[in-house]
């Protein structure tokens, strides 16, 4: 019997909107807006000029920094502008705008066929790096960095929990792309030099568990159905439940010998290593109660949210919030013009009823947030300290920096306090103070 992590919440999963909808391929976008920052690390610099003709899969931006991930053209066509454009998390970001030539031609040399088993570890890592692969679950951490840990690791975990309500992209991929997942996992495990592989799936997705069990039959990879509880897909919680190992405070999964990758990332690894295809598209769930026909879409990077939503029939009622990612940790958007980037696992439009925000009032110390916090923090206190600008105390006495910002506390708070916002703010103030010194 699996031992669950402490805390957590049970929000309505709202996955029924799209869980039975097969991944659809919408028509080619006329233009794509490709931001230079789609990953954790240094932003890339464009290596194309306005007026250049580019082909699908061609590198259009790169960087010299260690922590970065190159960016590729997602359609073939002409670069019409390189300018600051709306961005999902940075508000504005330098972006390359490509107008489609309608041909959708690949750059020379891809797709190809490669026998991954004959590749050296170094070659695989280079392919992954040059293909622009980052954590596709939303964290967008460069995958080649994660797959070359500087500590001994013995376990590879595929994060297929998909604990965020509404999102079904990983779920559909497990059902529809299971063969690619199998090979992707094998490649990752060989690269890491580990023999133990685990795929963790929340048990509200029995179809996915079944599909994965079938696909991985005869391999050493375990498929584990995890109790459905948010944030089951938070890396630290997932590792704890699957291996009973606790990532130390301030540490990384590799500190306990584990590397975790998302389902989408594993598929991207397969595409890159076996077929030479870089990240030019991703599966995104377009859902929410304000979307007319919610769908799972295979979208080209740079497609605008507006285009994705209009392919889903537009809005059925007035959307109160437009969200990139899931409703628990995703980011609210101010414009429909933001583009789909590598980390966009979902596009959600929620009505006022679904958002259920309410006005913030003082903490009544009910302790529900303490019970919900998977990290063993006292969120109510962190919010009060943030409110009173006691940033240092929050950090030193209430372990501010341990917060993973999963939002469980806010979800459960009857006083509707914006605890995570106070915490993010306190973290940024601590960072500012540290930089001043």
């Amino acid at each position: 019997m699996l031992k669950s992590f402490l805390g957590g919440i049970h929000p309505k999963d709202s996955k029924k909107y799209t869980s039975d909808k097969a991944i659809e391929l919408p028509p080619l976008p006329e233009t794509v807006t490709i931001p230079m920052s789609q990953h954790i690390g240094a932003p890339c610099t464009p290596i194309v000029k306005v007026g250049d003709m580019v082909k699908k899969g061609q590198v259009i931006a790169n960087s010299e920094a260690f922590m970065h991930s190159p960016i590729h053209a997602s359609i073939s066509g002409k670069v019409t502008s390189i300018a600051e454009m709306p961005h999902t998390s940075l508000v504005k970001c330098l972006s390359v705008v490509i107008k489609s030539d309608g041909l959708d031609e690949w750059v020379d040399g891809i797709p190809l066929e490669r026998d991954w088993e004959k590749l050296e570890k170094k070659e695989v890592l280079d392919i992954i790096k040059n293909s622009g692969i980052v954590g596709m679950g939303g964290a967008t951490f460069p995958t080649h960095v994660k797959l070359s840990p500087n500590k001994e690791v013995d376990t590879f975990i595929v994060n297929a929990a998909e604990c965020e309500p509404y999102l079904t992209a990983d779920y559909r991929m497990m059902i529809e792309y299971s063969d690619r997942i199998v090979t992707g996992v094998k490649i990752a495990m060989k690269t890491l030099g580990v023999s133990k592989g685990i795929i963790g799936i929340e048990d509200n997705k029995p179809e996915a568990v079944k599909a994965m069990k079938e696909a991985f039959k005869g391999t050493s990879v375990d498929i584990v159905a995890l109790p459905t509880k948010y944030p089951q897909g938070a890396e630290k919680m997932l590792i704890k439940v699957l291996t009973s190992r606790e990532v130390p405070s301030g540490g990384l999964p590799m500190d306990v010998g584990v590397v975790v990758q998302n389902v989408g990332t594993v598929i991207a690894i397969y595409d890159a290593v076996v077929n030479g295809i870089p990240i030019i598209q991703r599966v995104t769930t377009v859902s929410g109660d304000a979307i007319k026909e919610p769908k799972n879409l295979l979208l080209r990077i740079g497609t605008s949210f507006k285009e994705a939503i209009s392919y889903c029939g537009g809005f059925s009622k007035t959307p109160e919030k437009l969200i990139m990612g899931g409703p628990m940790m995703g980011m609210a958007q101010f414009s429909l013009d933001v583009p789909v980037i590598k980390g966009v696992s979902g596009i959600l439009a929620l009505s006022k009823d679904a958002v259920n925000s309410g006005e913030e009032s003082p903490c009544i110390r009910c302790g529900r947030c303490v019970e919900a916090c998977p990290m063993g923090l006292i969120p109510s206190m962190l919010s009060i300290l943030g409110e009173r600008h006691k940033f240092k105390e929050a950090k030193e006495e209430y372990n501010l920096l341990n917060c993973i910002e999963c939002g469980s506390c806010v979800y459960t708070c009857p006083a509707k306090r914006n605890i995570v916002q106070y915490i993010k703010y306190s973290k940024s103030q601590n960072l500012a103070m540290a930089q001043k010194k």
Partner: protein
Amino acid sequence: MSSEIEVQESKMQGIKVKEADTQENSFTVSASPHIRCDESISKIMWNVNIALAPAAIFSIYYFGVPALINLIVGAASAVAFEYLVQKFRKKKITAFDGSAFLTGLLLAMCVSPTLPVYMIIAGSFVAIVIAKHSMGGLGYNIFNPAHIGRAALMVSWPVAMTTWTKMTTSVDVVSSATPLNILKQQGYSKLIETFGSNIELYKSMFIGTRNGSAGETSTILLIIGGIYLIYKGYIKWQVPVCMIGTVGIITWIFGPSGLFSGDPIFHMMAGGLIIGAFFMATDMVTAPITLKGQIIFAVGAGVITSLIRLIGGYPEGVCYSLLLMNAVTPLIDRFVKPKQFGARGE
């Protein structure tokens, strides 16, 4: 930096942004998460009021019109005082969120059903205006407002507060004192004699056909209310169990005629212990925030209650024990923290 802070704070509630080009859609931009559960403070407070309803209704049935008047005046005056304070301080009016109603109701339930109405109003003034709003209002008060109100009445009108009229509807009980009064002044055998037998004593304590504060007498109805709150997840069962259990164990060990000669069953149902343990030791604002802290709080309150009952000057000690534990709540919260995920050195 301060202007930066102000800007940040103005955003705390989320801002509505009109989309530039479409003009059709405007989206609220705020920090995650974007969905919330449907609990609210007023939902919790009204549920606690509902949980108190069976015992409150019983007190009207049992003590009659004076109890009815006191309950209504208690709740209504508390709401009125809160409204006035908030109006006067130009704060948002939250007088109808059930919290002031609850304070007033609890106050009226924790005093003699025949207490003069003006005293109830005075107690409710102290509770709401002094104990609650002078501290900053809901969430900021250190002490349980209803108990501060009760304590203020106790020192202001000690005679009226300890006068228990003969009950009109019961033939079993002839004394005009509460069971704990009889125990304190005349001893355990007199108590049993008054009620006829142990079984009769327990029966009246369980059902509530005894003298006492308006809402504290019916053990069974208070427990039903408490179970409702436990079921709803608003209170933890550990708190009442630990407080009542502690009183039971201590009063059993230190009995009137040597070790283990006490009557824990009587003590656990007597006085305001049941209402205090289920409805006041569990007060969110004034009790510790962690479960571990709440258990320490409950055991501490049980110990102090027993000490007051057994060797103190008062027959009953629930009110003061809870107020004393309220005072150490910040201290408990400072030292009792949840187990950190990934804490180093383990």
